[in-house]
């Protein structure tokens, strides 16, 4: 399964960098969004994928079957929350920029 997630990560990174190179602010925002998702998926994949196992021990405290590593899940959860805040702020900022410049083009935000 790793090969598919790795390919998906590649696609997400590729698309996000293509968007980030644009001067259109909406595309830049989409690029940032996809970049965040690609990174989260990368953490998840590189820490090792396990199928059908819970990230918890059974009641006796030992591990009879393989367990999923809970740490990357916690890391991604944190990263998703932070990403949400960042995207929310960027969205507000970009909207403000559009109000100021009347356009969604970076070139028009130069100082006069």
């Amino acid at each position, binding site marked *: 399964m790793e090969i598919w997630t790795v390919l998906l990560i590649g696609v997400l990174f590729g698309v996000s960098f293509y968007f*980030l190179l644009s001067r259109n*602010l909406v595309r*830049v925002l989409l690029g*940032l969004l996809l*970049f*965040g998702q690609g*990174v989260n998926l*990368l*953490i998840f*994949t*590189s*820490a*090792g994928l396990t199928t059908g196992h819970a990230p918890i021990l059974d009641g006796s405290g030992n591990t009879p079957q393989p367990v999923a590593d809970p*740490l*990357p899940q916690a*890391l991604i959860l*944190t*990263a998703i929350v*932070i990403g949400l*805040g*960042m995207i929310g*702020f*960027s969205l507000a*900022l*970009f909207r*403000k*920029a559009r109000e*100021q*410049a009347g356009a969604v083009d*970076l070139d028009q*935000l*130069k*100082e*006069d």
Partner: protein
Amino acid sequence: MSNLLAFPIVIPFFCAALNILVKNGIFRRVLAVVGTAATLAVSIALLTAVEASGVVVLNAGGWAAPFGIVLVADRLTALMVAISACVGFCSAIFSLGDVGSAANRAGFYTFFHILLGGVYGAFLSGDLFNIFVWFEVMLVSSFVLISSGGSKAQIGGGMKYVTLNFISSGLFLTGIGLLYGKAGTLNLADLALKLASPADRETMLPAAMLIFTAFGIKAGLFPLYSWLPASYHNPLPTVSAVFAGLLTKVGVYALIRIFTLVFPLEGTRMADLLLILSLLTMLFGVFGAATQMDARRILSFHIISQIGYMTAGLAMGGLGGLLSSIFYTIHHIAVKTNLFFVAGILEHTSGSGVIGRIGGYWKTRPLFSFLFIVPAFSLAGLPPLSGFWAKLLVLKSALSLGFAVTAVIALFVGVYTLFSMIKIWNEAFLKAPPTGDHPTRRIPLVFFIPVMLLATLTLFFSLIPQGLLSFAEAAAAQLINPTEYINAVLFLSR
């Protein structure tokens, strides 16, 4: 005693919470000064604690490393926290005159406290993912501070700042993901043990390069510095002074920490790369400054060129290189913040930061002019000021290790910096004002006190450099031989 480590983080966040609860403007201003003063007192206590026992460790939440998150202070951390607390305290005083009641109502001080808390957190954390979280805390509040005000220039500068820093955080997180996949830990001390052999580090080169790029963007290294001069001259002077003093230096600190502890640079090709980038950073910074006429823009470009000196010290390595890097960083934080304060005062008293349009301060404000000379000539590296000792250390290690080109460029950039400082001096202070009327507006005491305090600190580093030198040398020794750090985190703190 190790609980001391929590206070530089707890105090700012407590103050931020109080700011949200209490709407009274005067209370918020008093709290800013009291809170930063309390952090300063704690940081000095931390400095003495580290001086006594080497490395202080706190297992947050009672989980021992490497499973829980650790806060660690070695000498470098303690030094950085202390100088940052000085900057925080001085900025709080400066903000009393600089931050209007509208900005105060809009919650300026909430983000000010959170920003400082994030900076201290990034210094103190001993866990890579936790460092990422503190970076984000710091960034989100700096996003708000840099784009609040909402003029076109501020929004435009804010956008570049936000986008590039967002990308840098993403690269950092990618590096963290790869590193965790290989090593199964993110605790810095544990990582240093797991990646102890050069062959293991070689396989983690992609992660190392991603983290290097991410910190390089945050520190303002060539060629990824363009966000800095585009955004630093726009916000309130207090904000740009704090940013100029602290934010890029957090990037430098992170570079020093990761690339001495986890990926030692000594003898790798990354060291060469960092040295070349540092030299280009120095050169492009001063060349950029030469074409600018706005005081804060000139100073922004000089942040970049000075960052080059700090990372050049790291790249050259050895005790001398790291010592010069640490000394340079500490000296630079005090000097640069002070110069941004002065630029802010110029803007407040004559309504413009463009040095061609103002002038005449030497005639009517001689004491203030003298207070500009101290940090400005220190930045340029004139003896006997602190910048001279800092540059001397860089030159000394460059010459003793055989980096002749580095030495030449460091000298050239020093001269060029002097040229920029003399440009500001001639235009803003010496020449008669183009409008004919000399600036006669009184400079409020709240502006004078922080400039005076930081100038005194600079003079202290200049005239009695032994104190800082010996402490920085001990800090560099701790970085070169990280056994003490690793033992303190992994074995002694249980």
